[in-house]
Structure formats: C-alpha cells, structure tokens
C-alpha cells in the first residue's frame, strides 16, 4: 500500500509540485491540501512546502498559521502524526508554535540559493530514524530569511532534548562559519519538536531527489518517514 503524503498549498506556495515529485519518487502518494480546507484527506504525513505563503506579508508564516488547514495540521501533529516543514513551511511551523524559535533575515542580508552540506545530529523521529548520526547530506537552500534564532535558554533546552536535527557543515561534517550560509545560531539548519514527529528545515530535500539534480539525499528523509508510517 502506498502512503498518503498531504502537501499544504497556501496562496504563494511554490514547491508543492516539487514536493509531489519527491513523494512519488520515494514511493508515496501526494495529495494536495488547500489552505482554506479543514481536513487532511486521510494523509499519513503532512508536508508544508516552500514558497512565500500569503506573500510573507507581516512576517514569514505569520498569516499562513491562521489558515483553516493549519488547525488540522496542529491536531495531526499533537496526535503524533509526522509533519515536515520545508523552508517557508519551517517558518510557518515556528509561527504556529509547533516548533520553537524563529527564522530571521540572513546575516548577509541577501537571498541565498546554493548547495549546502548538513550533518544529521539526531536519529529519532520519523524523518531521521533511518539515518546514522553524523551522516552528511547534501541539498540546496533557497531563502532570504533562514537564520535560525532562539533565546539562549531555549537554545540550551533544544540541545539538551536532542531537538537540533540538522546543522550546516562542511563536506566531511566539520562545523565552521564558512559553511553556515545564513548566520544561524549553532549552525542550525533544522529542528524538531520534543516528541520528534514534527521537523522543520530550511534546506530543500525535494530538490535533492535525483542524481540528475545533483543529489538524492533528500529521498532518505522521506523513505525513513514512509517506513515509520508503514510500521505504525
């Protein structure tokens, strides 16, 4: 049986079709979820894709979090269902307080689209459980506001509870400012909630799903999640 992956579409979302392509390559069945609707159409896991939902007006994700669909996403998340926010989706999850912290303007004050390396920091939760800690994944970023920020005490808590999921790194996993494309605190590229079922990340795994596109590393996240969904 194939697992249904719900893909949220807000006005201004642009990576829903890329996500659908990625889901299909990983063996799942994509289902588009319109922001104004209130149900997940039987989705086993939910993806909030990249884009500029509602034009990023006010703040990135600040309007999208009030969408009717987000109530259903919240229920799904609180019930332990897998939720992945990519780029703008990560920003929406932070605004919706399903994830801690915030994404600020890149420290270079410019948009950045480039390939990055990511170190897998924890191996729990649906998206990372199939990977080994320290594994380096390659996938691109594409954002103007991706600098992860959380207050110092919250940051300590995140580290203590193993919620820092992915960090920007060099090709062999080494950390350094030269590998941090946006000035994120502690090189953080992705965080998860305490339970591990909600993951937010700035890099785009859906753009790293074929050798032709330069990397297939993005498939690992989804294949792991689909295996978890299948087992539960």
């Amino acid at each position, binding site marked *: 049986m194939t697992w249904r992956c719900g893909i949220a579409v807000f006005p201004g979302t642009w990576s829903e079709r890329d996500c659908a392509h990625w889901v299909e390559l990983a063996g799942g069945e994509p289902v588009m979820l319109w922001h104004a609707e209130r149900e997940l159409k039987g989705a086993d896991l939910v993806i909030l894709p990249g884009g*500029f939902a509602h034009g990023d007006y006010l703040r990135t994700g600040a309007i999208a979090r009030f969408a009717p669909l987000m109530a259903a996403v919240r229920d799904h998340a609180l019930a332990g269902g897998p939720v992945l926010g990519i780029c703008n989706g990560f920003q929406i999850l932070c605004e919706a307080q399903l994830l801690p912290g915030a994404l600020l303007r890149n420290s270079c004050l410019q*948009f*950045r689209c480039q390939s990055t390396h990511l170190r897998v920091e924890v191996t729990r939760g649906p998206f990372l459980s199939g990977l080994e800690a320290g594994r380096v994944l390659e996938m691109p970023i594409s954002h103007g506001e991706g600098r992860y920020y959380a207050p110092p005490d919250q940051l300590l808590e995140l580290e203590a509870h193993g919620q820092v999921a992915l960090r920007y790194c060099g090709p062999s996993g080494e950390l350094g400012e030269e590998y941090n494309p946006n000035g994120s605190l502690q090189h953080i590229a992705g965080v998860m909630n305490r339970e591990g079922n909600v993951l937010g990340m700035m890099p785009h795994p859906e753009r790293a799903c074929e050798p032709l596109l330069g990397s297939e590393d993005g498939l690992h996240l989804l294949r792991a999640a689909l295996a978890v969904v299948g087992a539960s």
Partner: protein
Amino acid sequence: MTASMATPSPAQLRELALTEEEYHHAVRQLGRVPNQLELGMLGALWSEHCSYKTSRRLLSQLSSKGPQVVVGPGENAGVVDLGDGLLCCFKIESHNHPSAIEPVQGAATGVGGILRDVFAMGARPVALLDALRFGDLGDAAQRHRFAKVVEGVGYYGNCIGVPTVGGETYFDATYQGNCLVNAMCVGLVTAPRLLHAVARGVGNPVLLVGADTGRDGIHGATFASVQLDEGAEERRPAVQVGNPFLEKCLMEACLELAGSSALVGLQDCGAAGLTSSCAEMARRGGVGIRLDLDQVARRELGMTPYEVMLSESQERMVLVVERGRVEEVRAVFDRWELRSDVVGEVISAEELQISSEGEMVARLPLPVLVDGFLPRRPRSSRPKEVERDLGAPPLTAGVPWTLEEAWLRLLASPNCADASWIYRQYDHQVGDDTVVLPGRDAAVVRLRGRPDGLAITVDGAHRSSLLDPRRGAQLAVAEAVRNLACLGARPLALTNCLNFGDPDREEVMWQLEEAVAGLAEACRQLALPVVSGNVSLYNDLSGASIPPTPVVGVVGLVDDVRHLPGPGFVAPGDLIYLVGGEGAGLGGSELQRLLGERVLGPPPGLDLELERRAAEAVRQLVTERAARSAHDCSLGGLAVALAECCVAGSLGAVVRLADGPPPPDGGLGLLFGEGSGRYLLSVEPGDGGRTEEVCSRWGVPCARVGEVGGGSVEVVGLAQIPLAAAAEARLQGIAGAMAGPVL
C-alpha cells in the same frame, strides 16, 4: 463626448510624447480634434514603446519562418513546437529606464512583465534569464545600482517561484548613465492550452482581473520613449511597484483557465495599461471594445478616466470571456482571492469606446489608434571617425603588465569572472527541472517525461559593436549558438531586445539600421527564426548614448539531459583541441577595455558559414560523447577560456599555440585576442582521431593544442599561471568589487 480642447501647446504634446506633426496627423485621420483623454491614449499607443514607429520598417527584415514556429512576433510571446504536442513560449523585454530611476522595483517589474507575457499565452513559466549592463564597478553609485537590480530580479523571481537559470552581465563605463535590464522568460504549454491575445465575439464580456488600478506608472510607455535627463528622478512615479505574490496567484488562476473553452483571449496590461491591451486585443480580432470605467476597481479615490486608461499598475490582465460563462471564470479568480470585474464588452464597430459616469468620454477608431501612427525615418549616418578608428591599431600604448599579470587581470575582470555573486541571489532550482545550473555556457531545463531538454542562453553585443554594429549583432547571435553547441543543443529560435540610444541622433540611427541588418543576416545564415522581440530606444543620459547593444535569447534542444558535458576539464592526460576559426584580434577586446583604451581596431572576424559548421561539429562531438568538456572562447580570448576550463575542472593544462619565437606583439594577440567560432574541447586520448575526423567532415579547423594536467595553466613559451591564482582571480572579480561600499 466631453468637449474637444483647443490645440494643445508644444509643451503639453511633449508630455504625451507626441509631436505637432503627429497631432495634426491624428486630427486629420479622426476628422476632428481629439479630447485630452483621446490624446493621451494616442500618445501612449503611438509612442515608440508601443508602436515601434522608428524600428518597425527595419524589423521587417527579421524572418520568423521555420517549420518549428507556431507563433511569431506580434503576440504576447513567440512560440515554437518541441514535438509531441509540447510548445515552448518565450520572449525577452527591457526595463531599462525604470531600473535606472528605481533599480529594485524597475528590475522586479521587468521580470513581472515578461512573466505575464508568457503565462498570458497559457504557458507555465519554467525559466527566467537576465541580461544586464552597468557602468564601472569601481564607482560606488554603479555598485549600488548593480546590487539593487540583482536584488529586484531575485525578489520577483524568487517570490513567484520561477527559477532564474542564467544570464549575462557586462560592465563598461559607457553604461554609466543608463543601465540595461533585459529579462527573458521561457514557458511550456501543450498545444490545446495555447492562448491568444485576441478579442472575438460581439457581446462577449471583457474582464479586468488582478490588482486594482492605481495612479502608478502613468506615462510609463511615453517615459520609456524619451531620453532620461537630469530631472529623471522626478519621473519616479512613472515606475511601477511590483507585487509578486499577487502575480503568483494571478498566474495560477490564468493557467487553471488556460484549458477552458470559456476563455476567448487573454492579454496582460503592460505598457499603456488598459488602453493598449484592449486596443491590441480588439484590433487582432477585427472587432471593437466598449469599456465602462465605472466598473474598474480603483486603488485611489478621484482618479480621472485619463488616469484609469493610462495607469500601468502591475499584475493586471484583460480577459475576453464567452458570453454566459462569466461566473465560472470568476469562480477561479475568487478561489485565488483575486478581484475580477466585467468592465466592458466586445462590439462590432472597430473602435475603443470609453464611458465614465454614463457619458462617452473617448471614442477612437482602432485602425487609427493602433496603426495610424506616423512611421518615422530619422536620418542616419555613419560617423566619420568610424573608418579611421576601425583602421587604427587596437592598442595605442604599451601594455604595462607581464602576460601573466594581464591574464590574471582579465580573469578578475567582472566581465569574465565567476558570476555566482549574482546567481546565488536567484532561486535557480525551484521546479526541480534545472539540470544545468547558472554559470555555464547555457542553462538546461529538462522536459518531464522526455529524454530531451531545453538549452537556453542570452548573449549581447560588446564594445566592438560601437565601431561595427552590424558585426556586433552577428557576434551576439554567433555566441549564443556557440553557447548552445557547448551543451550539444540545436538552436530552435531566437528572441531579441534592441537597446539603443536616441534614434534622432544620426549615428544612433545608423547603429540601429546596421545592427538589425546584421541580426537578420546572422539569423538567416544560422537558420534561426526570430519569434519575438522588444526595442528599447532613448537610452541616453544628458546627450550621451549607450553603445549599440542588441541582446539575443536563444532556445535550443539537447537530445538527452542525462549526458551533458561539463565546462571543465575532466581527467589528466585528456587531449585539448581548439576547434573553429582563426584570426582573432584585440580590436574592441576585453584587454583593450582593461587598459582604458577607446574602442579601436577591427572587431573580431566572423564567418557565419564557418560558425554554422563549427557548431554542427561541436554538437556532434558532444552528442556522441567524444567531447568530455566543451567551452567557447569569448571575452578575454583563448587564454581566459583555457583558464576557465582548468578552474571548472580543478585541473591544470599545458598548451602550445605557436612554434618558434613569440610574435611581435609578445603573444598578446594569441592569448587574449578575441575571434569568433572558437571552442576548446577536451577528449580522451583515444578519441583524438574521432575528433579530427568529425571536424574535418564539417570542414572546420581543428588543432590539438595540448593536454590536461599539472597544477598550473600554461601556454608554452608565453605564460604560466598557478591554477589556484586563476581560481582566486575569477572568484574575486565581482565579489571582490562588491565588497566595497555602495552609495
């Protein structure tokens, strides 16, 4: 009708970009004196920007014929057939004047406008490219303009989710006053969904959808048709402000409707706003349109009919819909939370009739409004000094640098250097289809469900076109063809943007005539139909014109996107071949520019027939996978191309260009001379024979010049630079210049 006014003063006419002669021409055709609104509408549609009144007779030389051509010039964008029912739709357009005044919004709305041209055809945009020109980056004001234009291009494309996959940028002091911002968009559509910008069916409703109409951009078309002057800053209100979020929703809604039989025609509201979109759609359909301005949603109170008709508020489209099916069309816009209003209907009289508050306020016959302009034929003459300058030696003084220094300086010139400072600010991957990323000879976007892909490039004339604009235009076309050949692509068709100065200057008119003739000749010989284009004149500041700058965008097909060569050398021991033309020179070269010299000397030679055959040979070698890397020799000549191949592959090379003692110029011409039709290929040692055989079959010169390997880039007997130094120079060219403060 409101009362006609007395004959307007010359100053009033100038504000509308009309001459007295044109005014009287209008009165004669109408048989009456037009009122102020009508005059404004005539001024906008008769502006150079909308009517091409100066360039039209020249543009007729460009052929749009070819079995692959589905739609040629005259619609929102050109369309070619990719086979199996898939069509490719593309166009390039300028937004030079607005970008000079307000670089972020000027550039952003340039991107927004070209996107609308493509999705107005029912095509989903899959790629954007930009061609940019600025003054010297040593100047803080130029750095500011450059940074802000890049920000603007990125802002719009990134937000709307269309990848910016390539482009070209050129810096020269002659663009100090006028930057050039040309944006190209490529879209895909299946044949049954192709839309046309036409009004048909008397009684069919006309809808205005998208943004509300505001006072922004009034006189944008006329503004683009006069010179910038010292007071140009005051024109800032003529620059529109873009809203890519709104356009994203508009695009999705229009694409959703593209397959529907409820939609008769669609056109974007670009230059001259509602006036031009309604007039042009009706003219194409041989009908008229009656508009009720009271139905137009306004952004501001108290707007006059004049302001409504000439507003260039962005993100608006005009639709003609089948009678009785308005509600199903509006439902789509409602779903995207977009405004849609019935603002008029199609009528049988070939007129544009405008009513406001129950009164007819303008009534213009479309043959007059759209086609009644006075063709202009300004005098042209070739400046006397051209002959002398063409015959002059390219370098008037000695070169103060060693060959190694000159080589590294060229690699660090922003015109040759790594452009990642630019394209890392552009989302170039959204869509999951960009298989060759920016920074290469051409970008490649795959076609889903097929083995082949689109190869796309933009290329423009450089300094040498100042002395020989005909050759300059041809060189731009030839370079585009070479860039595609490096990826094994067959060119399909071309779009062009002609950026020139004030055509009322005799030398500018000469440049325009020469360049168009050159473009026509090159396209004919290289079998490239011209399917769309744009003309931008009056690129002057305080009497100084830009050099003639034709820019071409070419779309081609690669057979198999899984097997494309890189630009860089692949393995030590591979053989390096120089394929193609000979006779490169320093006239108009990048070395000459770096030395601060005027443009002097003959431009690079060009044999279009040889160019065609060389492209065929390279394409065959790439497609057969004999060539492991392919790159053309462009600015900075062979030495720069060689270093680029080395840096891209992180491998050195040893090359021998000539035997015996160095030539009288010390080797400058051999290393840095710029010629056309030249490529550097690397092949496995076993494929050397095949390479020579293919070239000989196409009758193309082919010389084995060296081998890949070592830690430096060396031309035996002349110069040698460490690979790391070459890489650093290339990397710092733009990024280093932009590290300085901006104004």
